[in-house]
């Protein structure tokens, strides 16, 4: 564990110095945690005057007493899903950069010749991708809550967050997704020599996120606790498979003889 922490500390210093990693994350956080919820809540009166929005509420939820409250709940569900982009994006940016830079700089072989164990190396690399992803996504969810509750309280007189769905997405689904993306990025990076193509793994996950949002907007289904828990269980089942594959890839001989090097 000491060796994994040494790797983690060194890698995190490099991540902080690399604005190609943290700048996109910062932009996404600002858009989905602050700008979008603030704009939606502050402009909610105008939204409710739009006949299409009223029709949409009637079609989705029937005749409701408080259309503003219903609209808020619906918008929050979309925003929570949008925020899943952060736990998906951060590991897919960090892990390939971390692994491919080792390949590019020829630093892996001397590292593997030290008494460092390969699971320690994998853990160190995984922590470098997972911990920032978990921390940043938690900060984003907390920021979203703060912005939504403050803006809603000022404008509408109530604070809608946290909801049970919010808790599940922020503290169960988000870490699971970060873990999956971390392992997938490690696996993809071992077979790649190009950082950008390896980072593309994040885009593969962003597609289902958009699909869920699209299906909700089209009225095909509405995300609830049951759907979220089933989704979490399915993703959880994938975790050990990816972990096993990543451990197999992170073997001294495999790294030196089968990994694609520059």
């Amino acid at each position: 564990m000491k060796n994994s922490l040494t790797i983690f500390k060194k890698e995190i210093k490099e991540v902080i110095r690399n604005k190609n990693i943290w700048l996109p994350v910062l932009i996404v956080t600002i858009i989905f945690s602050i700008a979008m919820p603030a704009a939606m809540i502050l402009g909610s009166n105008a939204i409710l005057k739009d006949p299409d929005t009223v029709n949409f509420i009637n079609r989705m939820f029937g005749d409701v007493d408080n259309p503003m409250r219903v609209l808020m709940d619906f918008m929050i569900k979309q925003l929570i899903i949008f925020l899943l982009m952060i736990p998906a994006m951060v590991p897919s940016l960090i892990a390939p950069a971390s692994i491919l830079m080792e390949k590019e700089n020829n630093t892996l072989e001397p590292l593997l010749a030290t008494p460092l164990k390969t699971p320690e190396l994998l853990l160190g690399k995984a922590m470098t991708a997972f911990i920032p992803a978990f921390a940043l996504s938690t900060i984003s969810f907390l920021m979203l809550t703060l912005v939504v509750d403050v803006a809603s309280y000022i404008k509408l007189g109530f604070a809608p967050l946290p909801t049970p769905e919010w808790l599940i997405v922020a503290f169960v689904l988000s870490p699971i997704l970060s873990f999956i993306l971390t392992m997938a990025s490690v696996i993809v990076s071992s077979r790649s020599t190009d950082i950008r193509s390896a980072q593309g793994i994040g885009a593969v996950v962003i597609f289902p996120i958009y699909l869920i949002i699209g299906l909700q907007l089209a009225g095909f289904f509405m995300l609830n606790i049951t759907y979220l828990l089933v989704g979490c269980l399915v993703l959880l089942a994938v975790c050990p498979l990816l972990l096993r594959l990543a451990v197999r890839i992170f073997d001294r001989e495999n790294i030196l003889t089968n990994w694609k090097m520059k």
Partner: protein
Amino acid sequence: MIKVANLTKRFKTVTAVEDISFNIGESEIFAFLGPNGAGKTTTIRMLSTLISPTSGQVTIDGKNPADDGDYIRSIIGLLTETPGMYEKISAYDNLDYYASFYDIPAQRRRHNIEKYLKMFDLWKRKDDPAGTYSKGMKQKLALSRALVHEPRILFLDEPTAGLDPESAHMVRQFIDSLKHENTTVFLSTHNLEEASGLSDRVCIIKKKIIRIASLAELQGSSKSKRMEIVFSDGASKFLTLLEKIKQVSSVEIRDNRAFLVVDEPHQSNPFIIRSLVEKGADILYVNEIKASLEEIYLGLIKDEETR
């Protein structure tokens, strides 16, 4: 210190190293020579526990890499053929990072980092990112990294590649000094002069071992010897006489010198010199010209190719 018995490594259908055996003693400098693709790097990787052999045995300090890999890695230092550094972090932090994986107290670690950075004249730039270093400086930094935990066995793959003559000389002197510190050095190099100057024994490999011997043994192994005869005046008038002597397999005349390749010189030289003196030659010197390691190496590789 290192025992290798019938070691073979195959990658799918390609045999990289086939049935090699040798022993290396403590404090010995063992030079490993061979053309590109001869299996030198693969052998170093097997000995440094990075890859496992297809068959055969390796013992390092009495331990088997398969069972005691962690122990072996703790007593070896490795300078790879293309040593890389973390370009964005300082030279000092690079060494500190690698050294932290060994079980050495922090104070000793700091002392060693300072010692080697000063030894290789890098101390003044210790806080500069490694990416700003020249190729030679990076090579010296990589050598410092291989040494920072004071290994008992050092694997060096082309240690002076990319170094200026002064730095290369410094590195060679340092490698030579390791003998007195009980460090065993496994030196893979293309620089034959370096190998002949530093090593106790030389191993010539081309997938299989072609020859293992000390330089003196290699030089003494040939039945033919190169001789130089220095005359007081022009040597060309003795060319015909020398060509007629059956023990002389070749003659080359340059001014007042004749260069001969002589079979069985202990028996032939008195006859050759007597014949020359009888024909009126004033001989100033007769010297044996020892074959260089380069000549021996090229000869052995050529023999292997024609076999």
